[in-house]
């Protein structure tokens, strides 16, 4: 182990997993999955009104936690690290400031945190979490799109077979589902506001798809 040079406190006795700070210094700029689309320029030059608003919440820290929802010690440890409990009800989410947790599966949660805090939080988890669990940094593999506007539900209905009516899909609900010919984890954050976690390799496809499907409503890109 000695030559795994950067493995510090994260070398938790319980999990014996390799953890590393994957974020370089500030001199190197990260490129989010939609970097090539240059959303910043579109936000400046593109239309300012339309039924759909889109914003990429880029370079967040994405941590996938898998553990046992019935293990009280683990649940307590999560709360110590994040200051908020894991959502145990299926398809729900919790949040605490900049931290949000999405239920993904009975033994899986997606934790979003500010990008620069990722390693700290991973390290804390490794220090705090007892028992059998896994924590995986997936920050490079996905990005978050925020979609809002008066036609946002009309747009999403074209992409996902999930019922988006507010009776079935209240604010705070999370679903992982099909999105066009890819997948997304969709969380409702307002009556007309949703966050989509999408996979990096599909992001260009989804960007194309969203532009096409928004034509009838008008698409406003926000920085």
């Amino acid at each position, binding site marked *: 182990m000695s030559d795994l040079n950067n493995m510090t406190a994260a070398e938790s006795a319980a999990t014996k997993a390799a953890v590393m700070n994957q974020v370089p210094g500030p001199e190197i700029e990260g490129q989010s999955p939609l970097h090539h689309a240059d959303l910043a320029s579109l936000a400046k030059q593109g239309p300012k009104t339309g039924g759909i608003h889109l914003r990429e919440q880029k370079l967040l820290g994405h941590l996938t936690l898998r553990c046992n929802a019935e293990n009280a010690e683990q649940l307590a440890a999560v709360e110590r690290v994040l200051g908020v409990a894991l959502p145990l009800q299926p398809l729900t989410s919790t949040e605490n400031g900049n931290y949000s947790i999405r239920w993904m599966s009975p033994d899986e949660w997606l934790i979003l945190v500010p990008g620069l805090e990722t390693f700290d939080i991973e390290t804390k988890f490794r220090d705090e979490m007892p028992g059998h669990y896994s924590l995986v940094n997936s920050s490079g593999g996905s990005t978050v799109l925020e979609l809002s506007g008066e036609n946002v539900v009309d747009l999403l209905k074209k992409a996902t077979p999930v019922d988006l009516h507010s009776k079935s899909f209240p604010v705070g609900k999370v*679903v992982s589902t099909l999105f066009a010919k890819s997948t997304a984890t969709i969380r409702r954050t307002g009556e007309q506001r949703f966050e989509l976690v999408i996979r990096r390799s599909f992001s260009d496809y989804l960007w194309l798809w969203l532009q096409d499907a928004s034509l009838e409503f008008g698409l406003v890109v926000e920085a």
Partner: protein
Amino acid sequence: MLHIYCPHCAEYREEDEFHCAGQAHIARPLDPEACSDQEWGEYLFFRKNPRGLHHELWVHAAGCRKFFNMTRDTQSYEIKEVYKIGEQPSVVAE
């Protein structure tokens, strides 16, 4: 188009999100080496394939990615129940 209740997500979802992994309750022989070719072949390939009630293994592939069992009528396509891995069906195919 089947409408499937995922026992893990606790709601109905479209068939598009799932896929069927074949007949349920086919346990891997505990001692494969003790199986004859015939027994191993039957484990691998031979199936009930009933017209009527059938226990199937499904996975919520685009959702929670959990496997679960389903009892379904292969003629009417009615789903009688879904139940988690390790659980036993309450409606049993003959």
